[in-house]
């Protein structure tokens, strides 16, 4: 087995452990940190079911962002939905036989790659053009966009310019999944693409990409507006005991 194969096999095992372990840890910490007071941003749903609806609207159509800024919303939704289609399309490299709906999804996933680049460049462009957004952008914000754009472009390049040995790649990943590593095709564009993806996986749980799990734990969005009807206590407020009631 070649050195390249060994390096990439280790890299992807490490990246997966960091991504899954890191996210699980973060979600655990979010879940364990108490929310001592009721702070939903109102008007807020008054039932649990209503909150589920609010959260679904937030994560599917980006409701608050739509209210806020149509350009960020447009580029944001293009990027996120294109990314979703691309990820689903990539399932074919990890499943054997390939599920039939993944087969049907292929053309959408492939062309979504272009949409993803459009969305990312739109978001990135705002960091230069809009002075307020330029002011708040750190180097890491630019690098994150650069990373995603590079992943998308290298992927598209393999599809449309320099075809890679996709059969060999799939054997490599199926091998990893069964803990029986197979040789990885030593194609430069592929190696770049994979290295960038592994980087993204490693960075995910320790960066602003935590907004993905974070939104579900945001008290201003996930709390039911019923403080009068139901006494809410957690953390420090759970240790309050008021004397003198009935």
């Amino acid at each position, binding site marked *: 087995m070649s050195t390249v194969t060994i390096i990439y096999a280790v890299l992807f095992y490490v990246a997966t452990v960091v991504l899954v372990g890191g996210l699980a840890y*973060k979600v655990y*910490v*979010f879940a364990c*940190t108490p*929310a*001592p*007071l*009721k*702070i939903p*941003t*109102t*008007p*807020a*749903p*008054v039932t649990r079911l209503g909150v589920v609806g609010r959260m679904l609207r*937030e994560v599917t159509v980006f409701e*608050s*962002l739509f*209210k*806020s*800024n149509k350009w*960020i919303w447009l580029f944001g939704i293009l990027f996120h939905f294109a990314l979703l289609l691309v990820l689903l399309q990539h399932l074919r490299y990890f499943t054997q036989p390939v599920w039939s709906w993944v087969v049907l999804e292929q053309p959408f996933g492939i062309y979504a790659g272009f949409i993803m680049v459009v969305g990312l460049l739109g*978001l990135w462009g*705002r960091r230069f053009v*809009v*002075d*307020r*957004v330029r*002011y*708040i*952008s*750190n*180097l*890491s*914000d630019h*690098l994150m966009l650069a990373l995603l754009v590079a992943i998308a472009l290298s992927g598209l390049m393999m599809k449309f310019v320099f075809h890679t040995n996709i059969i060999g790649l799939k054997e490599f990943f199926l091998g990893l999944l069964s803990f029986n590593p197979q040789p990885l095709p030593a194609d430069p564009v592929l190696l770049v693409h994979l290295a960038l993806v592994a980087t993204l996986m490693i960075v995910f749980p*320790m*960066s*602003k990409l*935590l*907004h993905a799990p*974070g*939104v579900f*734990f*945001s*008290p*201003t*969005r996930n709390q039911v507006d019923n*403080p*009068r*009807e*139901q*006494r809410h206590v957690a*953390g*420090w*407020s759970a240790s309050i005991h*008021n004397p*003198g*009631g*009935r």
Partner: protein
Amino acid sequence: MANFETPALREYPVIPLVHAGTMAHSKPFVAKPDLQKALGFPGELPENWEKQAVKKLGELVDESRALRVFLDSCVKCGACTDKCHYYLGTSDPKNMPVARQDLLRSVYRRYYTLSGRLFPKLVGARDMTKEVLDEWYSYFHQCSQCRRCSVFCPYGIDTAEISMAAREIMDSISVGQKYCNEIIGKVFSIGNNLGLPEPALRNTLDGLEEDVKDETGVDVKFPLDEKGAEVLVITPSADFFAEPHIDGLIGYAKVFHQAGIRWTLSSHASEAANFSMFIGSHENLHKVAFRIREAALDLGVKRIVVGECGHAWRVAYSFWNTLIGPFDFLDPRYPVPQHICEFTYDLIQRGALNLDKSANDDKVVTYHDSCNVARASRMGTMPGGQFIIPRAVIRASVNKFHDMEPGSIHESTFCCGGGGGLLTDDLMELRVKGAQPRMQALKHVVEDHGVNYLAAICAICKTQFAKVLPYYQFPMDMIGSVHGLVSKAIQLGTKE
């Protein structure tokens, strides 16, 4: 009038370009050591204050899911950058919500995240230094905790939570704001924000009874500490003598009178405001609120109604049940607490009040949604009742009413510019500039509909507007209480 320029009011809202540092000089007076000690904070800056501040930050993050999620989740998308009235009025980029959060987030990243520990420059992480502390003191006292940014953030990040935490950290190392902390001290030592002792309060209320008797010929009572009353009214102490607040209090009294419901104020809990929320101190938040539970138990009332006060209604509606509940000793048929607008609205619905709208025909009214009522509480049973009910009370009392433009009312309402513990003369420039977006929307209804009365249900809004309206060439007496309108319209002696 002052050493700064009042912002211009325009035809259309304009998002200003960034002008760094325009408000870097803005700082409220610092609290003296004895003020700090009275609230349980240290009086002097400890020697290793940097370490203590960082430690306190960690503790606060551990005990607040909101703070932790908000500090971790921001992607710097920019959605909030044009939403803060202080940014719109000052063009100082550190008044953009995300930049304000970053003042604290940068320190959090440095000490509590791997990326910030390893690559501080890359992710904008900073050591806790004197410069950082000074910046915190300046810009976390340029946030009125109005939550407008949290409405528009895709993750619901609420800068109010961040600024409360920052103020709490600063207090924990003795750096407190004079205005807020002096007021909280007065609540503990005297019983209300204004420092009005019981005899003076009783005197004021007796005077009001005489005034109303002279004006209407009717014996409307303003009871204090009356055991066995059905309703305890908790109202901001500004209602006892400030203009236009007092017209609101007279309105409440007339409503109770006509409805024939026995009510009382309490000298033990003669204050609805709870400034401890502004400084993020939950010990003091509980302590200030607890007087109300004591008063309710002592007076043996069945219901609690809260007067016109924005942040007090947030504390009462959202936090009381947690802080000073359960309210199993009160009548379960009514919500605890009830807003005075809910109370009056219910009576109107039942036909228990006789309101003559034409008594207010000299007024063309618009309504300012106060931020804490709009974005941090509710009235009635429906989401958004906090927008519907006060307007319904106004419309039952006046013939001419016009709302301001949609982007400036309901949950998008602009802060008056003086909320969140900033209603102090040492922050006058900030208050005037922060009022610009609200004043602009007001100007449009003044020009288009001849509006001459700006109704509000918040003591801070009322005081702030009375002060800043003249800067924008509006008369200062344009601002009034919602229950001031009810007070004019109600026909005493016809229903009782």
